[in-house]
């Protein structure tokens, strides 16, 4: 019954179009927060690059391979400063991506956290103003961000299956979140 197969494929094509429209309309909402692949950084995190625009909270955070070279600090000259008034966002546990969040600081990440860190370089140190977090793709140098009141650092990794060895093939589902003592996201 050739026509039955054709009809089934036609129906599938229509269903696929409906899903594609849904995916297109929801693509911004589904984006991983604080993505490391060159999307937006948390709004309150400070950034002190050589160029001016990134000083604002909503500026982009070019860390990944799509980063704009103009926002990358020169090697060996990282600088950071705390944000003037960091805002506190919703609780991480209330977010849809909470299931993909792996705590990487303080303490030693567990096995899943280590897997989520594959391909990424995250370093955290305490400062007088809070914590200074440097997150980037392995091999890249970026400017640390200072989060006042930050107590925990999380890596978001929606799919661990895209990591291999020391390579993360898909940075689009990776992100970084810093929370305060109450578990709320610092923005």
């Amino acid at each position, binding site marked *: *019954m050739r026509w*039955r*197969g*054709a009809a*089934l*494929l036609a129906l*599938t*094509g229509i*269903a*696929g*179009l409906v*899903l*594609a429209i*849904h*995916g*297109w309309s*929801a*693509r*911004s909402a*589904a*984006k*991983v927060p604080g993505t490391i*692949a*060159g*999307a937006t950084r948390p709004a309150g995190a400070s950034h002190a690059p050589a160029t001016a625009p990134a000083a604002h909270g909503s500026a982009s955070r070019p860390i*990944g391979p*799509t980063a704009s070279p103009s926002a990358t600090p020169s090697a060996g000259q990282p600088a950071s400063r705390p944000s003037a008034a960091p805002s506190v966002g919703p609780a991480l546990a209330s977010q849809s991506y909470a299931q993909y969040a792996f705590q990487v600081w303080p303490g030693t990440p567990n096995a899943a956290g280590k897997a989520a860190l594959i391909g990424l370089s995250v370093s955290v140190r305490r400062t007088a103003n809070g914590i200074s977090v440097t997150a980037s793709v392995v091999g890249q140098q970026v400017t640390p961000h200072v989060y006042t009141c930050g107590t925990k650092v999380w890596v978001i990794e*929606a*799919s661990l*299956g*895209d990591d*291999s*060895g020391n*390579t993360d*093939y*898909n*940075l*689009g*589902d990776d992100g970084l979140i810093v929370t305060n003592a109450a578990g709320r996201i610092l923005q």
Partner: protein
Amino acid sequence: MSPPMSPPMSTVRSPAIQAAERIASEWAPTIGRISLGLVLAWFGYHELVQPSLWTGYVPVLASSSAAAAVLVLIHGWVLLVLAVALVAGVTPRLAAAAAALLLLQIVITLTITGGLSDLTMRDVGVLGLALYLTGRNTHRLRI
């Protein structure tokens, strides 16, 4: 007088083994076809509903660009149609051949960007299954 010739041990099979071989011969291509279809369906569905999580795989283009999202949606749509064709057995050889082409592109891209890795070799295995199904014309459970 010499004793009667007995068949070599390698050709002696019990009825149970013969039945298992017949069942495997008849059903293994079908199971492989449906399995490949389920793999494509899973990836196709997720690419369609959450394209932003997959744009990082698009070569050349920035993962945050709209063009990358469009390409992921098109890729997901093709995967979904191929998946249904494979699972339902609608032109399975053609669908398997198209899947093989898509997988070949994926393997080449992953190899260029990250070298040979466990991820790449896993896709090589799926590519082999698609190529195998391209050469099989006998399938059960076809509509």
